[in-house]
């Protein structure tokens, strides 16, 4: 019983982390049709900025509980700076080009950002561990879990709910859905597509950075951490269907729970299990579980 409960809890915690990262990736793809390889570096940037801010915060002797505010602050700061710089400075010149070209462009951005991180922070690891244990633990079936991890689940749910609300209930969200549906018709109807792209990429960047910011207190912030995460994020969005918000949620849940079950019951196949599930989904649903039906093109 303890085993099943811990599989579920560990799976949900891991899924939350995956969802926060993957949702930004799928949002950008859904609107802009860009498979953003730089997403991992933006995640790393969020983690580095958070580690720096948290480091200064605790070195300054400020109230430790307010350090939690630094996490979203870092995500917003990275999103507002890096998002517009990349979108306005580079990507807007590439719109209309083949998706493969954009993959290569964002891969170039990933490499540049990796070196920027190395230039600014060096190759030493950073840690922002203080917030992780600050809220204490709680026990489930005799196993201790940190309140911070529970908070991660809450944040993921809030992000999902907020995005769903914005997309379905607000004017801006409906404009965005219109662009997702058909960019050219949207432009013809007077929607400022360029602005929608800018807002979407900035929001996607913020979500990537938020993933990094939330994970920074749990890990050692090291070079190449972004490269590792992008592979998992792709697995999630491919399972769920590129561009689909519910798909990202379901993909994250599947990957999180499968991985957790493998770790608990069959650790030898932990790595294999994620990609096995991905392969299985792609055999039956080549465009992912929540892919939108496409009109046949001649």
């Amino acid at each position, binding site marked *: 019983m303890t085993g099943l409960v811990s599989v579920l809890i560990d799976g949900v915690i891991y899924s939350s982390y995956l969802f926060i990262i993957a949702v930004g990736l799928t949002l950008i793809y859904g609107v802009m049709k860009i498979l953003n390889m730089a997403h991992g570096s933006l995640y790393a940037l969020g983690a580095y900025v958070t580690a720096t801010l948290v480091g200064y915060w605790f070195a300054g002797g400020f109230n430790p509980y307010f350090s939690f505010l630094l996490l979203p602050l870092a995500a917003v700061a990275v999103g507002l700076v890096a998002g517009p710089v990349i979108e306005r400075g580079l990507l807007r010149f590439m719109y209309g080009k083949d998706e493969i070209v954009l993959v290569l462009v964002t891969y170039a951005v990933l490499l540049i950002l990796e070196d920027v991180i190395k230039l600014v922070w060096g190759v030493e690891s950073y840690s922002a561990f203080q917030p992780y244990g600050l809220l204490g633990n709680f026990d489930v079936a005799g196993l201790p879990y940190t309140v911070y991890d529970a908070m991660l689940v809450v944040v993921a749910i809030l992000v999902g709910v907020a995005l769903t609300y914005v997309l379905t209930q607000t004017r801006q969200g409906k404009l965005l859905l219109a662009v997702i549906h058909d960019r050219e018709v949207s432009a013809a109807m007077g929607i400022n597509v360029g602005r929608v792209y800018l807002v979407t990429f900035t929001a996607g960047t913020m979500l990537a950075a938020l993933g990094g910011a939330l994970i920074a207190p749990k890990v050692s912030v090291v070079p190449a951490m972004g490269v*590792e995460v992008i592979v998992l994020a792709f697995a999630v969005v491919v399972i769920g269907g590129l561009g689909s918000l519910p798909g990202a949620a379901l993909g994250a849940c599947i990957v999180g729970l499968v991985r957790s079950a493998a770790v608990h019951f069959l650790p030898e196949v932990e790595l294999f299990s994620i990609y096995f599930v991905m392969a299985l989904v792609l055999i039956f649903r080549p465009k992912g579980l929540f892919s939108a039906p496409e009109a046949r093109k001649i």
Partner: protein
Amino acid sequence: MNTSRARTAPRLSIAACALAMALAAIVTPTAAQEKPIKIGVVTFLSGAAAGPFGVPARDGAELLVEAINAGQVPAPYAKKGIGGAPVEMVLVDEAGGTTKQVNEYRNLVQRDNVDLVIGYISSGDCLAVAPLAEELKKLTVLFDCGTPRIFEDASYKYLFRTGATATMDNVAAALYMIEAKPNLKKFAGINQNYAWGQDSWTDFEASMKALKPAVEVGTSQMPKLLAGQYGAEVSALLTSGADVVHTSFWGGDAEALILQGAPRGLFEKTTVVMTAGEPTLVRLGTQVPDGTVIGARGPFGVFAPDSELNRWFRKAYEAKYKVAPSYPAYKMAQALLGVKAAYDKAQAANGGKRPNQDQVIAAFENLSFEGPGGKVDMALGKGHQAVQGTAYGTAKAVGGKITMTNVKEYPAARLNPPDGVKTEDWIKAGFKAK
């Protein structure tokens, strides 16, 4: 007048000769000096392994090269240069995977014309480069990677390793844990899913079972390298009922395991032994939970002996880099001093003339030399693989500083199989040659 001219002429000739010799010395200084020895040094300068391993190793190399060229290293290495020749270093980044490293190795040998290569932290890179060293016939010294497969699965002429294998780390870890917890019934492991982690766990598991046959394995977790998140693994370890958890995690993974495991009580409920934990002490300090058993992959860092060479190394490193040297710095220094010892020995055997590569190799085989971590014997792999004693200790924070308690030293002979015997067979036979 003639007499005077007759006297003056030889003086002028002597003066002219002296002037010409002085000028020649000024204009062509290299002609009078030994041609430098060019060493390719390969270590992680980017990526996750750079901070904990690559950069300390690079710093150790730079410090040693400067000191060797200036003749500042204490005896028996006080003579300037290597075999009297100054040392030039060509630094290469180990990041990028084995395919890239194979290309980089070829570049070092065929384009940069290095005299030898010292390098490689990753066991995967060592396994990839080893056959290439034979193919290109270039003296290559592995300084850090731990997999014992290199000299157990093949025989090499041009390849040496001045650092002991991971066998030593894991046999010593098992000995330490059995002594510290004689009543332990179950143990578990969390190791990275590649050559280093797999070999480490195999050796530790086999050693534990050889030392205490009734002991059981709770779980063996093998997350991928740089996974970063170990929530599920920590739960699995906590529910496994293990008394001891073995990990060969390094760098960011080791730090993440501590940061995620400590708040959840993993380090209180079980005794965690970190075979490569010493750099983590340098980086996390008192964040390392009390009671964690720490290894340094040899008698390095906090376990280094109180010798003149170690005191010099430690002082010079701290003065230059404002931080204590961790074991990768020690192991790089050990490799450079091993090369110097081999060259100097070969040169002495060659009547003081610069030895060729084959003469250096002959001198290197079965060599015993001193490093900042103590005596190193090239005793395995037909004289190409080093053995060395090691030590383990238990972390305890005292006065805001992390210290080592219950330190136990283990001699090399107790931790390594005899030459020609495979680690696996040796451990399974109860640490005896079959």
